[in-house]
């Protein structure tokens, strides 16, 4: 049975990771509705988990992994939500004049799920290749391969920093 978590812990984990979990969910599901569901489900699983976290990084990695796995489950119900829901959400996110941001958002959305997640974790969450590999349970070579493919697809001029380790 999982130990009851304190309300401070709940506050802390949600405040600390809500944006991260939500970004991963939104970028993977292409649906605000699904992202909301995944967001709740992720933190609910955190509550239900027996996991003892060795460190803050460990807890973060666990949350990312659960979020990604939940996104995959939702992904298997593809097309459940129409493109209209994404468009509505884009309009909610970006002002009409923010065409550049909207364009970037759409380009990232168009990436395959695996590339998207790695790109997001590397460039936005600023995780290292090794951390991403550990978190997603894939090899570092695989992470680099996905980063390269993601960059190529996005035609990014992102600073690679030598795929910092």
């Amino acid at each position, binding site marked *: *049975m*999982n130990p*009851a*978590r304190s*309300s401070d812990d*709940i*506050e802390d984990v*949600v405040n600390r990771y*809500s*944006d991260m*979990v*939500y*970004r991963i969910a*939104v*970028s993977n599901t292409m649906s605000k509705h699904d992202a*909301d*569901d995944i*967001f*709740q489900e992720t*933190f*609910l699983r*955190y*509550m*239900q988990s027996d996991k003892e976290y060795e460190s803050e990084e460990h807890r973060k990695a666990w949350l990312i992994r659960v979020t990604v796995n939940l996104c995959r*489950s939702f992904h*298997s*119900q*593809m097309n459940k939500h129409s493109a209209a829901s994404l468009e509505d959400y884009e309009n909610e*996110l*970006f002002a009409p004049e923010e065409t*550049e*941001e909207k364009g*970037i*958002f759409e*380009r*990232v959305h168009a*990436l*395959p*799920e*695996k*590339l998207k997640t790695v*790109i*997001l974790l590397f*460039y*936005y969450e600023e995780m290292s290749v090794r951390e991403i590999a550990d978190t997603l*349970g*894939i*090899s570092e*070579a*695989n992470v680099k*391969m996905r980063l390269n*493919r993601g960059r190529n*697809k*996005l*035609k*990014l*001029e*992102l*600073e690679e920093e030598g795929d910092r380790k």
Partner: protein
Amino acid sequence: MKKSDLKRTFDSISPSDDLISKTKAMMLAANSQTEGAPDKKPDVKTATVLTPRPSRRKLLHTVSSCAAMLVIAAGMMFLYARSGDFPMGGFSSTKSFDTASTGNFASYARLIDQPVCDYESFRSEAVGEGNTATMSITATMLSYDIYTSADESFGAYGFCLARISVNEVGKADGLSIRKPGGGTAVSIVIYFSDERDINSLPVIGEEYTFLLASGKDGSPKDPLSIRAGMYNTWKCYGFSAQSTE
């Protein structure tokens, strides 16, 4: 696009305050139930803020019955029907796969270009090349062998060589794909995208639904597309069993 553009774009994505407060309330509710019933998992369904969702089994069933499909090459069937053999880079279903099982992945690695070892990239390429015609079949798994690879250059963690028995062939727009001539058994090769997939081994005797992908112009002659199609489908849809209940 620069890194700062990317960060700026994603800065705007955050959960609503309402969602955060509901989630915290849900967690607290689950937590208090845990404290009150130490021998029982929290009945989180009673948390009123939760969005009702189907049970996992129902979900699996829904996914299976609606979209749990794998792409295999219609060209394989075409070639199979034509020759009764199953050409796959020099291997055939009637030949021994000992060379593969002993780890000779180099030859396989050469069969698949890296760019097509990815579902979406294939899809996008396919759209450009007009290779998007698909059709579905239901089939029964007759046998399979799993081969794994530690070779990073392979682009996949391994593959499954399977023989399936075609039970039913669905309709496809503009295509006429028939059951293989002289029999109903077809060999397929499924490439695993990651280690997790390898753990989801197919089960002999289960029924599966596959999605067939054709080659260019509805004529399955492009071997590259055919191979990519097989690989891609696995990645996309997984090997979900069709309930036989």
